[in-house]
């Protein structure tokens, strides 16, 4: 599939979509959004790119193996839970920084956990999409 229109559109849409996915991830705690939706959004952006430029190009753009993203996501989520356990609470108890970050409000382990969700969803969806596309 080499469509000039699609390729041109991807150039402009990709960065916007990826930024949007991060935005959705970060706003999730207060407004609709979160790691799951953000992850799916990023995966859709990457799928878009893969359709236009081919899965190899997307893999190069991504820079890491999607499987690494999955592993990293699970590790981050586990670490977010483990931090609480380390601090003496039950696994996955939320802990917050005392400073408030402008635009985000309070920042703590739940956000880290959400980042893990985001990474797993991006990794998993992209892995499936790219593997399917590569076979095509």
């Amino acid at each position, binding site marked *: 599939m080499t469509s000039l229109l699609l390729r041109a559109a991807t150039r402009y849409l990709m960065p916007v979509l990826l930024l949007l996915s991060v935005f*959705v991830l970060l706003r*999730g*705690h*207060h*407004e*609709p*959004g*979160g*790691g*799951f*939706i953000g992850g*799916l*959004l990023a*995966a*859709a952006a990457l*799928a*878009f790119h893969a*359709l236009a430029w081919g899965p190899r190009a997307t893999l190069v753009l991504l820079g890491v193996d*999607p*499987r690494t993203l*999955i*592993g990293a*996501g*699970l590790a981050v*989520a*586990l670490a977010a*839970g483990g931090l609480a356990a380390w601090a003496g609470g039950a*696994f*996955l108890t*939320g802990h*917050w920084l005392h400073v408030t970050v402008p635009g985000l*409000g*309070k920042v*703590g382990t*739940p*956000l880290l*956990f*959400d980042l*893990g*969700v985001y990474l*797993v*969803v991006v*990794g*998993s*969806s992209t*892995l*499936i*999409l790219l*593997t*399917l*596309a590569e*076979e*095509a």
Partner: protein
Amino acid sequence: MLAGMIAGLVVAAVLAPLVERRLGNAAAWVLGVPPLAFVAVVLTHLPQGTAVTLAEARPWLGELGAELAFAVDGLSAVMALLVAGIGALIVVYAGGYMAGKATRGRFLAYLLAFLAAMLGLVLADNVITLFVFWEATSVVSFLLIGFDHERAESRAAAVRALLITGAGGLALLAGLVLAGLAAGDLGLAGAQAWRFSAWAAVDLRQHPHYPAILALIVAGTATKSAQWPFHFWLPGAMAAPTPVSALLHSATMVKAGVFLLARLSPHLGGTAQWRWLVIGAGVTTMLVGAGMALGQRDLKRILAYTTVSVLGTLTMLLGVGTALAVKSAVVLLVAHAMYKAALFLVAGNIDHATGTRDVTALGGLARALPWTAAAAVLAALSMAGAPPMFGFVGKELLYTSKLDLEALGAKLVVAAVVANIALVAAAGQVAVKPFFFPWRQPPHQPHEAPPAMLLGPLLLGLAGLFVGLVPAVFDQTLGPAMASAILGREQDMTLKLWHGMSLEALTVLALSAVTVSGGVGLFFVLRRRLGVAARLVAQASVIGPTRGFDAFLAALPKLAARVTAVVQTPSLGRSVAVAIAATLSVAAPPLLIGDFPRLRAGMAGAGIHEVVLSLLILAGAVMAVALRSRLAAVVALGLTGIGIALLFALLSAPDLAMTQIMVESLTVILLVLLFAHLPPSPDRSSRGQRLRDALLACAAGLLMATFVLAVLPGQFPATTAQFYADRSLAEAFGRNVVNVILVDFRAFDTLGEITVVALAGLGVWGLLRLRLDDPRGDDR
């Protein structure tokens, strides 16, 4: 303190490969030090009588009554000393044994991890703590048996050991949980009910669940300690490198079952059921193991079967349960750990030096391996129970404790003498034949082992001699404390080589003489007729449990393949149909039998936009079924999905709506990608198939609708939603309740879900990759 030390050992295990890479041959000497810390700590905190030292408990899965609790009593002190002491020697030995191999770092790491698990097991004072470490030893044992994972034989042995001990572990878990609940029933409150040291306050034998508790726990200990009919995994485990056999499969891990029986004998022992079950298993194992040992050619298999026999003897003694029997179990356990570990290491040295472990191919090695030979003789004398070794003291006590019994005693004495005659002959096979009988040319020119591989066997052999000559080092310190802990009451102990001229003492001495001379005679018979014995044993093992187990293991995948062939046909449509039909058959009856939910008919309260959206969704569904073009059907399905998403948005669930839209978009992309693989024109299914599919689809849809209707009418506690809404901002600092629930309140669920997502991704990747790499993959 103990928990910290165990954690330290785990850290040492993790660092072991790095240390090995940095220090090379010296690494094992350094890594042998951490286990010695346990020896030092336990020796400085030796408990007296039934007392407990170094007790500690920290909360861990609080609601489940599980604590991370450790304590040192007489029993755990002796076990910990054996594990840590022999462990340190074997770590050093392994450094020499694996010298020059790239896998040495990993091997040392596994050994240290095993020591951590085993020490946690023997020092545990909480039911759940014990079980977790118990399972950990099984897992590490699996890794170690299968260490040479490129050999099919190792892999099979590792799987067999894991399955047997794992199944036993499940039985044990059930038994231990029942016991903890029973202790709670009988009046122990909270964490006390799950603490071994607290069980002395109640009598578990009075509880109606006692027979089940006993049977389940004995099943668990029998698999771990290789009791008949579960014994066969142990000789198979000899596929592991020799240091593993010495550490796990003779001195420590296989004693875990015996250890737990001993730990529980004051709480569960003494009843008729206990006696029949435990003595029965023990005697059978003792005789089977001794008999099988005689027909082996491989040094390690000979030792493995004698280990089985001794484990049977220990079990039998704990079943008898008199003070004398327990004391003799204590002495035998310690003596056996020392001599058997030494003999395994000797076998390792022989293998290392000559390239073979076949006893018929070995002879006259004493000149080439003088130090190994010395260690072998010391250990074998202890095994044969010859004076003045520790093993002699143990055997004397064993016979005395049997004579002590009335009716059963005579039979048990005969059985024990028969088994011990076989052990004497086996000791000769392992330690005399290879060194002192006429020279045989082995595959390699033999050479003496390096110091790292001599330290262990020599020290352990000498220890057997030393404790035999100076029994006060044992019978004034560790021995009575261990016996007291097992019996649950204060004991003292006197061990001596010479018991005077009483009738009983002379009888026992005569039995010893019969054992040794009988064993020597048998040894000479075996020298000429080992082939006959091997054939007999091979024929006898046809009726043994090994065959049955292997047949079971072989049949299981075939059964699975048959079921899969029926349930998961290559046709995706039929697979889905089977899944839906199965769900319906399970889920529908309860709904039909129960109160059928009142269908609240009418559209009251529904706005015009909701009606329109619903019609849109319906239209999409109908079109998806009716349209002939695939692409059009996908677009129609997308219509349904977007309609549902809009409905979510209208019903003020923006998170759901957003997710739904994203999923719909990705689904369309996925389907488009998939179309590349499908034949250009869709082949329509037959009329009958379409009718079947339509029926199934309608039934499934009805079921889901009924479910929703059944759940809806106000069965939720109204407080649930309010609970989350109230606390979301106050306690979790988030205004988006849905997200707060996902990442905070119920984050553990989410963790499980993302694990599933991750596995699904990897699964799809694996399936597609397998197909790509293997052109025949299409058929599977």
